[in-house]
């Protein structure tokens, strides 16, 4: 810690004020860390569940696709997929959670299979549409986890730095300055005593 150390009472008081501030900051950061951990735990649980669900859905979709593809042939699948008029449009809005910017994904437009797909492809198209929605949600959660985890890492570093380096160094410095000030005031006191004694002796001789 580089700061112009002055062994004065004023500086000591300033240091103590700073230490109080750092301790408060440490407490706040600890609270933030705990909250982020809680949020992260919750989202990770949700993410795991969602991932499992999507894995199952993708498996089912692949099976259905294989069956439909094998029954009707490639031409049917390719030509039917062309009938979807709208393309997927997304909007990403930043949302702040404990000061961390996380993306929130909003679907602006999504192709509606029921409006365009031939009936025998409809089930497959609906399944794919649901999976796309779920995948977007999963991507949103993944981005959330990444950002929160990154912030948690930084907060942890800050908390540890305050706990293990900054606060102890402030305490040590305060102790050193207090010791030095105490010692110098004792010296001053002793000096005054000696001077007083000498003056009293001189007065007695006169």
């Amino acid at each position: 810690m580089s700061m112009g150390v002055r062994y004065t009472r004023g500086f000591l008081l300033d240091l103590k004020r700073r230490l109080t501030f750092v301790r408060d900051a440490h407490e706040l950061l600890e609270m933030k860390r705990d909250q982020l951990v809680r949020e992260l735990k919750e989202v990770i649980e949700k993410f795991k569940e969602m991932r499992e669900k999507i894995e199952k859905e993708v498996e089912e979709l692949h099976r259905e696709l294989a069956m439909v593809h094998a029954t009707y042939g490639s031409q049917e699948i390719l030509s039917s997929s062309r009938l979807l008029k709208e393309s997927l449009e997304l909007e990403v809005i930043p949302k702040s959670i404990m000061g961390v910017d996380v993306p929130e994904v909003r679907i602006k437009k999504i192709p509606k299979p029921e409006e365009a797909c031939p009936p025998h492809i409809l089930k497959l198209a609906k399944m794919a549409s649901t999976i796309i929605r779920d995948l977007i949600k999963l991507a949103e959660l993944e981005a959330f986890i990444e950002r929160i985890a990154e912030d948690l890492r930084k907060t942890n570093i800050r908390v540890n730095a305050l706990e293990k380096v900054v606060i102890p160094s402030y305490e040590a410095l305060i102790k050193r300055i207090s010791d030095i000030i105490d010692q110098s005031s004792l010296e001053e006191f002793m000096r005054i005593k000696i001077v007083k004694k000498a003056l009293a002796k001189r007065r007695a001789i006169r």
Partner: protein
Amino acid sequence: MSLTYLICRVHGYAPRLLTRDMILDLASARTLQEFVEKLSRTDYGQKLEGARTLTEIEDSLTEVFMNKLRALLKAASGRTQTFLKAYLRRYEVQNLVLVLRMKAGKASEKEIERLLIPVEELGTLKIEPILKAENLEQALEIIRGSKRYLLPEKAENILVLETSLWKDYYAALLKNISKTPLQDRKDLKKFIGLEIDLHNLKICLLTMDEIIKSSEAKKLIIRNPAGIPRRRLLSLVKRRAKDLLLELFHNYRGYLEKFISGELWLAEIEKYKILKRYVDALRIPKFINFFYVMKYLLDLEIEYRNLRSIAISIYHELPVEARTRLLIM
């Protein structure tokens, strides 16, 4: 060339169809390469040479299938050939459906061309001008202008247009039955009626499930003089009773059940199974009749579908049990 010549030629072609055991053996292939190797010993060998990807294999299978149809058409003559041409126009309709869908999706000429079945002389329309059309409306105008198909002036969706094409196809086909030998007409009518019934029942169920609007169902149900009357189907649609359909049309029970369960692809397989069952039941008495040609045509299409289905299921790495479920046997 007489009808007897055609039937004899078909008797010559029929043994070259792949047997059930061969199809099952092909279905057990582990890779597409193994599938091609196994098929190389058959009629498909020459065309499949060098085919590696699924698209190449599918294209080769389609080419062989089309060549077999062409050979059959060449062996026919006169009125029989006219009927066969009317029957084989189904592949032109399939192409037109593909073109309309792709045009609706603003696909390029090349993209559409890649998907088409090489119909050539089996069709009645020149496909190139339709492919060159700038948009769907222009393509529809060209088809309307050809006077071969009566397309509605205003169609809300592609499904209505597709059904209009099929309606025209079946109307022409039923009309051409008069070109076939007298003793075969009844069976042929029944056979075509079966196909139309299955299409109509599909529309009924989709309307009951509200996938198709009731107003559209009227346009989509094809008039069937050889099967369930349109009026009866429309009244059943109004009542929205799927159970009643199962009860009334127990011949189609398997098809209806698969449809109701939501597995439409299984229903499609069942459709061919029903047609095959009907044709196979007529096999012995119809062995030297024109209907034998129809049986061969159906068997040929089933063989093509089975081979395509096997190739695609190998590509998707489906287990052998799933592959055999997809086969029409």
